[in-house]
């Protein structure tokens, strides 16, 4: 019991509870038809961005390396997921299963890209690593804007770069159409799937952090030289965290793309990577519950500000600055620390009384 109530366990538990409570509340609101359709349409993107923030937090917060190309992995997952879903549409008729398969494939493909990118990138550190991840994000974007993939009536795949594959026979269907991206996607993402993905991501991340691997990763973050001296295999653990982060982002990407009838590579540009980084920084590096809240709030905020019409993005920017300032204000921090101490003190008193 004592072990279960350890500080970090309570923190982790509160993340699960927050997500579950939010899910239940949303479901009740939908059931009671009390939720405007705009907010309903935001539920899946919110889930996606939460998972993206969580996965990036693994790289930025736990591994301690700044990645500026995280949307690239989302893109890989998105394209793989949609292509798989379109290709298997006739084979798997249960949409939930199709979605699950698409998400798993998206995650696997993103993990493969994570390995490919990780090998050169993780030799670097700090600013250099950040710049190279940025470049890789752009490479992935450019790759997908020039990728053509068709499927012929017999189920064979044809892939072309820059131009359409020439061996495409009559009657075949284009899955990925260069800069046009993918159109005519069947919308199969559900809020429940998003919720399950968040919970799975949380379980993976919390358990990784608590494990031997997680401790090694954090040791590398805190002091690379010391960690190396102790005999920790730096490359292996860095790679583990990086690939894990990429895989989760890939699953989120698949969920995202299957929520819209159309997807193009330009969506997953530098701006999206930065947006996700903003969620992580705002929520606090290494702080998972913070990422969840930040991602949810900052995804809903610009839409909720629609009543300001032309000034919407201005108001959004101002709110963002204010939140950043407020969360880093020493006076406010001290104020909350005091409250925290008071609560703790009270608890101790109660504990004494109980004895």
């Amino acid at each position, binding site marked *: 019991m004592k072990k279960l109530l350890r500080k970090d366990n309570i923190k982790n538990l509160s993340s699960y509870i927050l997500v579950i409570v939010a899910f239940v509340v949303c479901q009740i609101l939908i059931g009671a038809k009390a939720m405007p*359709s*705009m907010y309903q*349409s935001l539920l899946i993107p919110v889930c996606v961005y939460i998972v993206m923030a969580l996965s990036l937090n693994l790289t930025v917060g736990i591994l301690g390396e700044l990645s500026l190309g995280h949307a690239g992995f989302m893109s890989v997952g998105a394209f793989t997921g949609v292509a798989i879903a379109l290709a298997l549409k006739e084979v798997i008729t249960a949409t939930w299963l199709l979605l699950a398969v698409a998400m798993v494939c998206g995650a696997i493909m993103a993990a493969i890209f994570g390995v490919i990118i990780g090998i050169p990138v993780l030799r670097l550190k700090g600013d250099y690593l950040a710049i190279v991840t940025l470049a890789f994000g752009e490479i992935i974007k450019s790759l997908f804007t020039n990728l053509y993939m068709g499927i012929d009536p017999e189920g064979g795949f044809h892939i072309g770069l820059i131009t359409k594959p020439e061996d495409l026979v009559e009657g075949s269907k284009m899955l990925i159409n260069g800069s046009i991206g993918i159109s005519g996607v069947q919308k199969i993402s559900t809020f429940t799937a998003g919720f399950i993905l968040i919970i799975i991501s949380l379980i993976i991340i919390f358990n990784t952090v608590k494990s031997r691997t997680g401790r090694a990763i954090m040791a590398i973050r805190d002091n690379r030289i010391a960690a190396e001296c102790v005999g920790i295999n730096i490359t292996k653990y860095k790679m583990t965290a990086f690939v894990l982060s990429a895989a989760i982002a890939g699953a989120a990407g698949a969920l995202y793309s299957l929520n819209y009838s159309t997807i193009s590579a330009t969506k997953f540009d530098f701006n999206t990577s930065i947006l996700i980084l903003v969620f992580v920084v705002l929520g606090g590096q290494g702080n998972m519950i*913070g990422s969840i809240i930040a991602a949810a709030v900052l995804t809903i905020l610009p839409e909720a500000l629609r009543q300001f019409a032309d000034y919407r993005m201005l108001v959004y920017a101002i709110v963002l600055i204010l939140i950043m300032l*407020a*969360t880093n204000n020493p006076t406010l921090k001290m104020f909350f620390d005091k409250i925290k101490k008071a609560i703790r003190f009270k608890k101790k008193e109660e504990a004494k009384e109980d004895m």
Partner: protein
Amino acid sequence: MKKILALIIAVVMMVACFTACGGQAETEATAFKIGGTGPLTGPAAIYGNAVKNAAEIAVEEINAKGGIQLELKYEDDAHDAEKAVSAYNSLKDWGMQIFLGSVTSKPCEATVAEAANDNYFLLTPSASSTAVIKDNDVGFQMCFTDPNQGSASAQYISDKGLGKKIAVIYKSDDVYSTGVLETFKAKAAELKLQIVSETAFADGTDTDFTAQLKDAQDKGADLVFLPMYYTPAYLIISQANQMGYAPTWFGVDGMDGVLTIEGADTSLVEGVMLLTPFNADSTDEKTAAFVKKYQEKFGEVPNQFAADAYDCVYAIAQALENAKATYDMDNVKLLEVLKEQFTSMKFDGLTGDGMTWDTDGAVTKSPKGMIIKDAAYVGLD
């Protein structure tokens, strides 16, 4: 402790926005609610705002006539499919009955799927991709589809014998540009037009075109086809001028607007040809009145996007009047009557006379060939 504060802020904001949206009073409907999404901010804002402004003018005019009354609301989608879907949903919450779709192609592909799901009638002024009307029963277009433009351009070049050796420069990461190119190439092959050079550029490499132009020049192209929007097109033309390369330039409707670039040297674009359904300098009574009104109100010459939007509102109004639709009809009923009207009626607008729509939702109207002469668009032939 950040998280507690963040939580508090989050809760406050959530509560604020939910209360702001709730509590819509049910009142007697006195107008048809028409909604649309478009890029009112961001790099594509010029198109979104043109559409919004022109639609507003049309709604004002129709309301002033005293017949059927319309209410218009435009939401910003920043040329992004994800934002377009939430913009569409916020319009749904507002009580929209008829949907003007999205201004740009990719967002419109996303919103048309939503509209098909919810049974809203959709008439987009300018989203030209075929996916907007294909595979659904609700989407209609006021503009040409991309393929239509490409093949019409090839046909026109071939008919008029404008060029023997053709070069194409296109934007490889743009749906519009590649869409037009594809059908242009197909039609050109059919008509035995010779394409000698085909070069591309993308976002981020859209400032220096010397390599592409050199290729075209070296291969002796006497006509360069530019399926793109006017900003890069203007750069291409001015850089070719510096190189001393002067082929015939041929553009599509995205080229419309090249004369309104601030600080542009209009002498450079002299002789540029383009296919567009709308001519702001037309002496046609309706067009002249619209251009004058638009200029008075917004201080600029309306482009083809604006004209298409203006036509959209009038076409919807005409269909509603023909069908004797009433304000209390819901979107499903309106979809039914409007679809019936649109597939059977003829519409005369700024962008063409006697327009008709097929069951897919594609419009039939003839593009006009234009040439830039003395810093103005002049109709060819």
